[in-house]
């Protein structure tokens, strides 16, 4: 059994990583509701990002199920259990393996409530490590983007420990399937790279709280330009915005936190104040959530804009392995900075 050396200190202004915050969230929800259980591959020893570390000891093998490598099988099983009133949480080793269960998620999970005329609901959380992390094309998918167009699913992309905990607890209590996509560089699990920014570790209160799905959050106030970014891109955007602040440019950084439902109002309000917008996401540019947001802005706020909407995303290629190529493809701070400065010139 692995031990968790980064266990939270019980002090009132304790700082946690996302994985620590998530572990608290799942434990609290499992204590609260007998119907919540977790299943996934090798979760007995913590799963690949240590999300389930210690769960087996507290809840036993009846509620912490080590599955075969059988994604379609155990996703379908979780759907059936959810139909009958349970609240499964599936821990995917990597979100990238979700494609082998595509039919179960898109055709069954997302549609069964609708096509049954509301006879069933499927409360089911998918814990999905997402994004590129130096492992080549098949372990670098921005899975949240792939599911963005599928009605019937909710999609959460938390970027801070505080948000992750409050959103995860809401996801478990939600009566719909929720894809909970955490960037692989954001968990902060032992032995894994952690994206650096002023908010990648952070205060998480000991008292219980929930964050509703579909409410975005302004991570930095600003007046001259709006930067909308999620996941790992939020941290990169924030680093850029903080640097620009000291150079005299006031950028507002908006974190949608959820892609479905999306807090469009928050972005519109911001852009009405700043009159400029850059949208930053890690996934491939074509078909990204930023395209949908750009269309919404064009539709509802074009009259407030002093410059065109600019998107920063990965080009339309699989994610390459070579570290120099990977960091050339995934939007980095210099690309985000150039985009902001380009818009300020207009």
């Amino acid at each position: 059994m692995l031990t968790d050396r980064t266990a939270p200190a019980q002090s009132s202004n304790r700082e946690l990583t996302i994985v620590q915050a998530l572990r608290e969230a799942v434990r609290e929800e499992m204590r609260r509701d007998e119907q919540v259980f977790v299943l996934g591959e090798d979760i007995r020893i913590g799963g690949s990002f240590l999300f389930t570390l210690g769960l087996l000891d507290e809840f036993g093998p009846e509620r912490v199920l080590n599955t075969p490598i059988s994604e379609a099988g155990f996703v379908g099983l979780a759907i059936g259990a959810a139909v009958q009133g349970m609240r499964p949480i599936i821990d995917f080793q990597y979100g990238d393996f979700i494609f082998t269960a595509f039919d179960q998620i898109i055709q069954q999970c997302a549609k069964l409530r609708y096509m049954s005329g509301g006879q069933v609901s499927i409360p089911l959380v998918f814990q999905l490590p997402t994004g590129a992390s130096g492992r080549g094309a098949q372990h670098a998918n921005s899975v949240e983007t792939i599911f963005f167009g599928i009605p019937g699913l909710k999609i959460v992309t938390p970027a801070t420990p505080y948000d992750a905990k409050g959103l995860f607890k809401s996801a478990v209590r939600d009566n719909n399937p929720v894809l909970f996509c955490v960037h692989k560089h954001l968990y902060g699990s032992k032995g894994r790279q952690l994206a650096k920014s002023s908010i990648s570790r952070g205060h998480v209160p000991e008292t219980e709280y929930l964050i509703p799905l579909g409410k975005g959050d302004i991570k930095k106030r600003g007046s001259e330009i709006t930067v909308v970014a999620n996941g790992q891109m939020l941290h990169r955007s924030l680093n850029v915005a903080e640097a620009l602040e000291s150079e005299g440019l006031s950028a507002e950084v908006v974190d949608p936190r959820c892609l479905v439902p999306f807090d469009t109002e928050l972005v519109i309000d911001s852009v009405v104040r700043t009159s400029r917008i850059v949208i930053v996401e890690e996934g491939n540019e074509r078909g990204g959530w930023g395209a949908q947001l750009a269309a919404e802005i064009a539709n509802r706020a074009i009259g407030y804009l002093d410059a065109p909407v600019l998107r920063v995303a990965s080009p339309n290629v699989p994610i390459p392995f070579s570290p120099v190529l990977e960091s050339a493809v995934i939007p980095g701070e210099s690309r985000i900075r150039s985009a902001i400065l380009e818009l300020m010139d207009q």
Partner: protein
Amino acid sequence: MQELSIRLPQIPDIAPLEPFDADLLRAMYRQMVLIRQFELKVNELFLQGIMPGTIHLSLGQEASVVGACMALEADDVITLTHRGHGQALAKGLSADSLMAELFGKETGCCRGKGGSLHVGDMSVGALPALAIVGASSPIAAGMAFAFKRQETGQVALNFFGEGTVNKGDWHEALNLASVWKLPVVFLCENNLYGVSTHISEVMAIEYVAERASSYGMPGSTIYGNDPIIVFQTVMAAAQRARSGGGPTLIECLTYRRGGHKRDDPGAYRPREEVEAWFKTDPIPAFRARLLKDERFSPSALDVLEEAVTATIDAAVDFALASDTPALTAALEFVYAD
């Protein structure tokens, strides 16, 4: 071209009816006749061009679905296939709400949002059907998982065709159900064909049930046109499941009387095979058996059949008289509150 093996029906010895309660036998016959008349009516409405959508009729397979569902308790749950009208009626769906669903009416079992391929009613333990071949097997296992965890004593029964058993989801489901000893019955309606493809072209063993052993569960191949045999086999499997023994795979050999769907004449099937199977039509066969038992008379069965006809006619009237859904219904039930 490789010659396809055809598989002619092998009719086993007919079990005596005496041990069975007359009400049970009557109900079995009534359900089979209900499905037969329902499907014939649906076909007629289709040919008249009144009914929308696509339709996969279950004519000829009545004994398997009725025998299976009558062996279950009311609160046990089934999953249905694309060929699901018979499965639904056998589990107790009302002919009214089923017919209305086929017409896309708001009084349908899924408020008109499912259609023929997605019929079901949770209140009678019929999960609305999943039309993707193989997809329902892990979901049935999952419902069984919940029953086991919640200690409800319920059982899930997963219907599928023999064309399904080469899908990964199916294999994953059988494996999971077996390693976790879930109370689920996997019931194959082996009608020899998946659309036009004979089972011997796509499976290198003779019987589907042979696969059970590789998952460590019992499997049996039975004559599926005898509702009594199906009833007894499913009853034993359900009892085993209920008492913690885990899953069972049952293969019912049967035959569809029509093509795969309404626009398919089924011309790919050898004449010899079709003729032999048509002689085993489960409904006249069961009627003849009942009439050898002194508890049943021709006139009583005639009355039963006429009552079913009235039920079907009323279902058509009900469906036609029902309203279509309000257009705003298209936006409802995407998400739960």
